[in-house]
């Protein structure tokens, strides 16, 4: 199996993926714009609104939008926590007992924040009921919350002179689930089943292996979970092995479907954004930056893996350790880059086993704030916040005070954006720093030296950025990591959301300034380059010192 043999199928696979995304994102983007702007309600939605007693047509100011969101998320965490603790007394428990408090807390937070960090083996810890009524439900709603926040920010840019009204959280949440996530997941689940992914409620099945030993194989509602796991950039696999498990991801076709699912919403939302602000070119620019960074990351990671040093990789033709031979190396790199560049965190190979530069690249994807293309919604609002930073730094150079999409970026806007940019790096750096010098923290780190530092950094980067994937080397099933990472997930999710919604409110109350020849053009390649540069420099510079001691040192060894 030499790399040369693998190259063409790999290129074809990427080609098909890009083509599919290119074809789908135009109508899908328009559809999502309609979903979030249409005044009409579906019957099932009305029933839900009546049940929870909300007026779906009442526009909320940013503060009440945020309070609704936080209230909803708090209830989600509590419900999930209760479900996990009590699963032993509930049906379909597979004989599993309740989950311990720290673990239940970590998991409840993790699924509510769209992180889906798995310190546990899904099959050995969570009952079918917990998986379906808890995890699966959160897979839908946490994704829909992310999209709602992104749409609220887009409304802030699109609207002019409202009194900070940015939509209705309950309507946005419901529509995201009912009109976008459910229908696609439904179709995707069937596609995955057709591809061989299992879907049943079976308990363990005992089989006899070729060697004659007996193995207990767990069945379950995998295909339905799998579809939303990727579509909602959640990432929490039914099985511990996630998408490298043959029941979750049996062959290259399902692999491609899964990658498509995890990229489709993040890469389509810029289109929706362009339509909603009335200038599709703005959407194009954001999309171009996301796609450019993603492609560069993919190229570098694939190259690093193919050129992996050492005798084993030479024999295998590439760094094959930890990767599924079913998919081969390029498909593993493609999956890994896509799952870290979105906030998914599902894996079809073990990131810990990537070569140092390859793993470093995956880590860097997460550290960038997952904006290329990022999690559902989170990627778009992250990139828009960075666009505001770019406009602020360079926009002055056209001789006007900075403005983006007709909205002035003044001190209040800048304060919110500055805090946004600060939050996640602070969580990552402090969390990692504390963990690498304290006993309980060090205990979880499996490998010594630079690689161990990468593992810890990856753990906190993944948690604070709500990715959920792990450098498998870090044992996080300890109270230290469960609590610390839980906090990182919680703050990493909701502090930025609060800041983004406040920003949306301020922007919505501003009067839109019409563009002129003197306005900084934010739809040209030059601005796309600037935005990519700001993303790399401003965000990247924060992490260069620690990266240089982790993956960089390791790569140069």
């Amino acid at each position, binding site marked *: 199996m030499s790399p040369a043999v693998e190259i063409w199928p790999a290129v074809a696979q990427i080609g098909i993926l890009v083509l599919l995304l290119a074809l789908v994102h135009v109508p899908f983007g328009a559809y999502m714009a309609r979903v979030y702007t249409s005044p009409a309600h579906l019957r099932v939605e009305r029933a839900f609104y009546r049940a929870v007693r909300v007026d779906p047509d009442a526009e909320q100011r940013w503060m009440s939008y945020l309070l609704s969101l936080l209230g909803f998320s708090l209830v989600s965490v509590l419900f999930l926590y209760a479900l996990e603790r009590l699963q032993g007394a509930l049906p379909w428990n597979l004989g599993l007992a309740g989950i311990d408090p720290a673990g239940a807390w970590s998991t409840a937070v993790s699924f509510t924040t769209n992180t889906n960090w798995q310190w546990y083996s899904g099959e050995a810890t969570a009952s079918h009921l917990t998986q379906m009524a808890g995890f699966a439900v959160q897979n839908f709603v946490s994704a829909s919350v992310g999209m709602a926040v992104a749409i609220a920010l887009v409304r802030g840019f699109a609207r002019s002179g409202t009194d900070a009204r940015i939509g209705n959280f309950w309507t946005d949440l419901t529509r995201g689930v009912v009109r976008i996530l459910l229908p696609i997941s439904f179709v995707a689940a069937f596609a995955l089943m057709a591809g061989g992914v299992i879907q049943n409620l079976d308990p363990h099945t005992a089989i006899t292996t070729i060697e004659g030993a007996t193995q207990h194989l767990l069945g379950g509602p995998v295909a339905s979970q799998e579809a939303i796991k990727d579509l909602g950039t959640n990432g929490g696999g039914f099985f511990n092995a996630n998408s490298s498990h043959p029941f979750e991801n049996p062959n290259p076709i399902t692999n491609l479907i899964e990658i498509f699912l995890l990229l489709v919403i993040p890469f389509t939302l810029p289109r929706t954004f362009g339509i909603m602000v009335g200038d599709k070119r703005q959407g194009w620019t954001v999309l171009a930056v996301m796609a450019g960074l993603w492609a560069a990351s993919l190229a570098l990671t694939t190259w690093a893996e193919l050129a992996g040093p050492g005798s084993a990789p030479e024999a295998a033709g590439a760094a094959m350790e930890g990767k599924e031979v079913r998919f081969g190396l390029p498909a593993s790199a493609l999956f890994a880059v896509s799952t870290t560049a979105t906030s998914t965190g599902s894996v079809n190979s073990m990131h810990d086993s990537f070569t140092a530069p390859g793993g470093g690249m995956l880590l860097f994807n997460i550290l960038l704030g997952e904006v290329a293309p990022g999690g559902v919604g989170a990627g778009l609002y992250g990139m828009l916040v960075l666009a505001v930073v770019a406009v602020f730094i360079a926009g*002055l150079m*056209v001789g006007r005070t900075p403005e983006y999409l007709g909205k002035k970026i*003044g*001190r209040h806007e800048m304060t919110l954006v500055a805090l946004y940019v600060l939050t996640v790096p602070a969580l990552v750096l402090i969390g990692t720093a504390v963990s690498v010098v304290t006993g309980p923290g060090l205990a979880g780190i499996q490998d010594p030296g*630079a690689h161990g530092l990468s593992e810890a950094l990856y753990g906190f980067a993944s948690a604070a950025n709500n990715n959920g994937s792990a450098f498998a080397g870090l044992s996080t099933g300890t109270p230290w990591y469960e609590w610390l990472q839980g906090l990182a997930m919680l703050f990493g999710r909701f502090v930025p959301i609060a800041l983004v919604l406040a920003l949306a409110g301020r922007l919505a109350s501003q009067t839109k300034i019409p563009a002129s020849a003197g306005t900084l053009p934010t739809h040209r390649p030059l601005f796309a380059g600037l935005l990519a540069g700001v993303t790399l420099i401003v965000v990247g*510079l924060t992490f260069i010192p620690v990266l240089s001691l982790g993956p960089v040192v390791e790569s140069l060894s």
Partner: protein
Amino acid sequence: MSTPTQNESTIAARPEVPGPEHFPHRHTRPARALTWSQVREAVPAALRKLDPRDLWHSPVMFVVEVGALVTTVLAIVQPAVFAWWIAGWLWATVVFATLAEAIAESRGKAQASTLRATQQQTTAHRIVASPMTPESAATFDGVETVEVPSATLRVGDVVVVTAGQAIPGDGDVIDGVASVDESAITGESAPVIRESGGDRSAVTGGTRVLSDRIVVRITAPAGQTFVDRMIALVEGSERQRTPNEIALNILLTSLTIVFLLAVATLQPFAVYSGARQSLLVLVALLVCLIPTTIGALLSAIGIAGMDRLVQRNVLAMSGRAVEAAGDVDVLLLDKTGTITYGNRRATEVLPLGSIGPRELADAARLASLADATPEGRSIVELVDTRYAPDGGAGAGRLAGAELVPFTAQTRMSGVDLPVPSGADGGVGRLPRDGAPSADGIPGNHEPSSGTVRRIRKGAGSAIQRWVLSTGTALSDAEKAELTEHIDAVSRPGGTPLVVAEQTGDRPARILGVVRLKDVVKNGMRERFDELRAMGIRSVMVTGDNAVTARAIAAEAGVDDVLAEATPEDKLALIRREQEGGRLVAMAGDGTNDAPALAQSDVGVAMNTGTTAAKEAGNMVDLDSDPTKLIEIVEIGKQLLITRGALTTFSVANDVAKYFAILPAMFVGVFPQLDVLNIMRLSSPESAILSAVIFNALIILVLVPLALHGVRYRPASASALLRRNLLIYGLGGLIAPFAGIKLIDLVVSLLV
């Protein structure tokens, strides 16, 4: 007759008020280059600014100062050459920053001291209010005054100022007219006229009355006069940070916190990796990473921006207005005096039928010789230069002439000339003394013969009515030709002036039409093209009718026109534009401009204007040149560009600094990191030191740029972004690699 004599003397004393005749009109004080003496003089002020309580306002520099203190303590506790070098250069970094600010401030100081000279205590002649007869109240003749120190004057006090005296405070002239020397404030040596009523009634304390006597009502208390505000502005003592500067500071602070975090957490990582770092090196890394370049120069840029305005004789009452000037979307410009020379000028004569151009020109000239209006003067000028180059000979044709003044009823004016018997072609001679009797008072002249030649000029309909009333029957052909001429003039926005004459009792005849035209100043079209490229829409405001206004707008290249504009229309237009999210700039001088000036985002009041206008605007142009709006916009843009350029440069610099410092810090434990030492710096110590030195020196290198502003040429935003991003973005990435390498070469020789 004493009254006319006095009038005459007043008129004689009236100097020509310098007007913005040529465009572009750049009345600027010579640009001041940065000199060593300036730098030397600023050093004490720079050292005073090291007070942490002052420095706290610039968080970036405050962090550097704390870093300098820490490294100094470290150097004392564990003396080492390297530690002293680092500490020294960190102090240098802070001092360079305060020095930049001190230099920027010192540039206004010279001007402030000349202004202070005008503020010397003067004696005011205050009118004693109580025993004032109605008569003396009306004329202020012979009122009783008391001498009081100018500092004790209060708002509402009325003072008398006579020739040779300094005006004791800001106020409005309520009686009299005088020529005033305002050079202390404007730098313009030619005196200006100040008179009661109208739009030229405001006087400034500290200026000097050269002739005559005026009565002034004080409008500003001592200590809050225009000069006081000017001094505060040019010295920068009253400077408040502008909104964008504050926002930028927030970004810089957050970047500082990010790097503080990155460096603070680096120690645990280093400890974990077995490469514990000294505090000295961590502080050096921190100072190199935080955006010191822009942090050091930010306030200097702001002060220098205001200074550039002052150099152009514009006073911005708030820094906010300077920033807003860069954002202006719509520029309202009065037609008269700004876009055109201010009055209609004769440009051509169009004779009717068989009449020769010379004959028409001659008649038009005669009708205008005694006409003191600019239009009348322009006809004489046109005829003398174009139609009768030898016209000097005709200088005395007004003997016994009677001026027929313009009235709203007749809507024409002209002259009645006695035709001397046997005279050659009706040409008369002036009286020997040569003074034209232009006052139109009948009975001053001896009639020479019975025949009178009447020449009339005026609007087409009025002249036609007059001609018909004398018994003339106009043929259809004549009427058609006349209408054709009139249309030919008015269609492109000109004003047709029809000329007719009547000799004796014979029927009058129409001679032809004079074309009067608003002449657009040279270079206006180019300026408007530039504005358009900058994305600024220009709107011409005029009282003219729509046809005339559009024609002039087309000639000048203005984007839009507000015709037949009243002050209310102007205000409504500004509001409308602002509701659409646009920023509006305008210039004005009259009291009825005050609401519009107050409403506009950038309102430039003319110094010659009324107190109301000056208070409503947020800038005052001492040269009273409305076209300066364009320069103000450019200065505003230049200020913002300078800030953006240095911010970009500062952030981009960090890449190279990482490449210098990180390998140096960890190469001891991880030799493989030497690959990252792409500058091949000689030793870890010299690498760190070189980065610190570069970081300090770059501030010094960029001080002139901060003070003078980056070069600005009007262009579209795309073009500006491309150019500046290339210079300051890419330049900011590359320059430090070269700079640090060079410094390292020197340092490795010394250390």
